């Protein structure tokens, strides 16, 4: 940088201070006028300091914006008929569909026709497919003609190369080739406040033990029993929820206690940065890490959440309904089965009774008929 350039601001200040005397003598000047004079680029001082000015903007007609409408679009055929192409080659650039994609070609977003296979380009018409359209297709053999005859199996080539499949090994060796472990896990002892002495489980046990057979004296007692059952189940659910929360907390503390140190390129061991970051807590849970959202974003998030909730609500309701229907069906089937069994038993009983009655009758008859005989025999014996 030239010395003159460096000096300029100083010169400016000096110049402005020099000119201060004149306005001071004039009592009519206002504060605003004085401040205007103090400004660095005030017109009065600028010309004196900077010297001559050159045109920084070119005069009219020196340049013009190029007309986009007359730019060449370079449309048209890029490959001729029977020319060899490989997948992805552009065959035809166009506005609109002058040519349609036919056999083994793909049309791009701007109606450009690309080849999908390696082969030879054919320009053709297919009146069976469309009476007026013209198509571009690719064939494997140069001699083939498009369109192929109707009912012929498609001509396809595999276009794949067999390689050895690599198993994605998730579990890496613990020890590296140099004989030192890839990672070291360090468990730190952290003082954790002891959990409530099995409080929740005790509570739950008590809840379970509470269940006692209800006495049905009238219809209201049935309903009362149902209500009781409902309340109990709700309490149990709450207890379960509490247990889950406690377990999650425990897990978090355990996670905070263990630190995995990984082998670095320079043979040092250290934790990865994100893991160090997570030691404080998961993102969103730490105060001050919340995202500062715009008003609109907040609204959007709220709407999304609400929608999600309602979607979930619907699925839950449907699931519940399904469960209800299943249960009803189960009960109904069971009833039918039991009724059938009962009917069978009843018929069996009736049959038995009938058989017994018949047998009885027969016995009585026999005894009636036998009695004289018996007496006869006795008589004969006598």
């Amino acid at each position, binding site marked *: 940088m030239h010395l003159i350039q460096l000096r300029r601001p100083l010169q400016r200040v000096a110049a402005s201070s020099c000119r201060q005397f004149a306005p001071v003598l004039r009592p009519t000047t206002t504060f605003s006028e004085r401040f205007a004079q103090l400004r660095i680029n005030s017109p009065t001082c600028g010309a004196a300091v900077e010297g001559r000015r050159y045109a920084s903007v070119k005069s009219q007609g020196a340049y013009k914006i190029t007309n986009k409408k007359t730019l060449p679009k370079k449309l048209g055929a890029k490959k001729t008929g029977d020319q*060899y*192409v*490989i*997948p992805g*080659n552009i065959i035809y650039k166009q506005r609109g569909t002058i040519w349609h994609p036919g056999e083994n070609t793909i049309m791009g977003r701007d109606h450009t026709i690309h080849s999908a296979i*390696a082969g030879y380009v054919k320009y053709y018409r297919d009146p069976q497919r469309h009476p007026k359209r013209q198509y571009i297709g690719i064939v494997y053999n140069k001699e083939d003609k498009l369109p192929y005859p109707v*009912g*012929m*199996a*498609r001509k*396809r*080539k*595999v*276009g*794949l*190369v*067999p*390689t*050895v*499949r*690599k198993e994605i090994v998730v579990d890496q060796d613990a020890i590296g080739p140099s004989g030192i472990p890839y990672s070291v896990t360090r468990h730190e002892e952290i003082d954790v406040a002891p959990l409530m002495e099995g409080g929740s489980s005790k509570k739950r046990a008590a809840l379970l033990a509470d269940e006692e*057979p*209800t*006495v*049905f*004296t*009238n*219809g209201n007692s*049935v309903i009362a029993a149902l209500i009781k059952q409902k309340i109990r189940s709700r309490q149990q659910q709450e207890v379960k929820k509490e247990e889950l929360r406690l377990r999650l907390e425990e897990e978090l503390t355990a996670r905070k206690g263990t630190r995995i140190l990984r082998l670095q390129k320079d043979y040092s061991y250290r934790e990865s940065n994100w893991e160090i970051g997570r030691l404080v807590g998961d993102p969103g849970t730490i105060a001050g890490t919340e995202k500062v959202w715009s008003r609109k974003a907040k609204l959007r998030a709220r709407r999304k959440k609400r929608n999600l909730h309602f979607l979930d609500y619907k699925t839950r309701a449907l699931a519940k309904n399904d469960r209800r229907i299943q249960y009803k069906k189960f*009960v*109904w089937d*069971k*009833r*039918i089965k*039991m*009724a059938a069994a*009962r009917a069978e038993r009843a018929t069996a009983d009736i049959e038995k009774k009938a058989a017994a009655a018949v047998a009885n009758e027969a016995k009585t008859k026999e005894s009636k008929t036998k009695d004289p005989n018996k007496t006869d025999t006795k008589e004969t014996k006598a």
Partner: protein
Amino acid sequence: MSRSQQVARPIVRSLQQGRTATTCQSRSIAARQFSSTTSRKDEITRAEPLKLSDIPISPQWTPEQLAKLTSPDLGSRRRRAALATTTHVPFEQMPYQCFQEARKVLNEDRQEKIAQIVAETEKIKRLEAADPSTMRGGEAYKEKRLASLRKHVEELKILADINDPSVKRRFEDGMGDMSKPVYRYLANRRWRAMDHKIIVQRIDQFHIVPDILPKFEPTVDVKMSFRGQVVSPGQFLDSRVTELAPTLRMQVFDKGGRLISVVVMDSDVPDTESDLFTRRCHYLATNIPWDPTKTQLPLRLVGSPSGKTGGELAVPWLPAFAQKGSPYHRMSVFILEQKAGEKLDATKLQELYDGPGRDAFTLKSFRDKFNLTPVGFNLFRTEWDENTADVMARHAIPGADIEFRHQHFKTLKTPRAAKGWEAKRQKPKFKSLWKYTKRIATL
């Protein structure tokens, strides 16, 4: 009969009906699961108060408690009133005047149709007995006339019952007897309404028609389920799901028994040596007796000694699999109808298509060789997934260690001298910059 008696007659009759019904048949329990008609009260409501036997017994409840629960004194006034007054009225005797008048009209129509059927069958008999040489058109004319008459009789049979509300009801409840023409007609109409259209679309969009067969029109409803789950045609299925053979749910719509063959084939087996896709037979069973009343065909049980399905297994089930990197495989299930009374030789089929013959399978040649007509179709697709390797190992299928990659084509562009900042700084003069300039893919 006096005027008042005449007026009261239908009511009395219905009451009598109700009484007899309740005495002879305590309750009609009808399991209606698929009904779209509104359920009627005669099926669920009961004329008597709740019985003990109607309630599922919980071990906690004593009989006394149960008796109290089921007493007619319990419940709202409306419930008690309903229990006291509901009677059993059969569907045909519902006391709606319009309904009964309509039934009369329909009955008249039915009688008309039946009379026509009788007349036509007599005509057929006469024609059958007649000598074709007396006719102007000869034997051909006679055959044509007979066929047309028989067709007409079949149409009349359908027309006789098609308007019957009880027929419609029974069909919608899934209780229709498929040996009767009217239910077959209704089932066919229902199939054609949607499922047939879907199958036809799949045949078209998955290029089944030019690839596997040059021409094909399905006439049998074929649905497929794996492990009890019905799969929609063309669905991608996990290889663990398709490890066991599916169960087919088939419905034919023309009368009479027949023998069918079932083929499951893969039409997209990549063969990199010839660079072409080949076919593979995954399953082949033959001589399976089938008629309109049958619905389920578990492919797993065909040919098993205890199987009720009948038929013979020629090629056992090979799980569907696709090697990694290969495009999806279309696994198509074909039902082929055999010529009437012609049984195929299962051992011969086994020789032809089992083992190494699996790979040489083509449906066209199979169809032509054994004089079969493809009638039913369904399909699913399979891709490489995380279970495929295990499935292939379990069934000793080789090729799980292969992964297909796309063939690389050499660019058609002429090589050009490299341009740019990096290209300029490749010389040893700029050795200090090599770490930035040397590892660039385009150079």
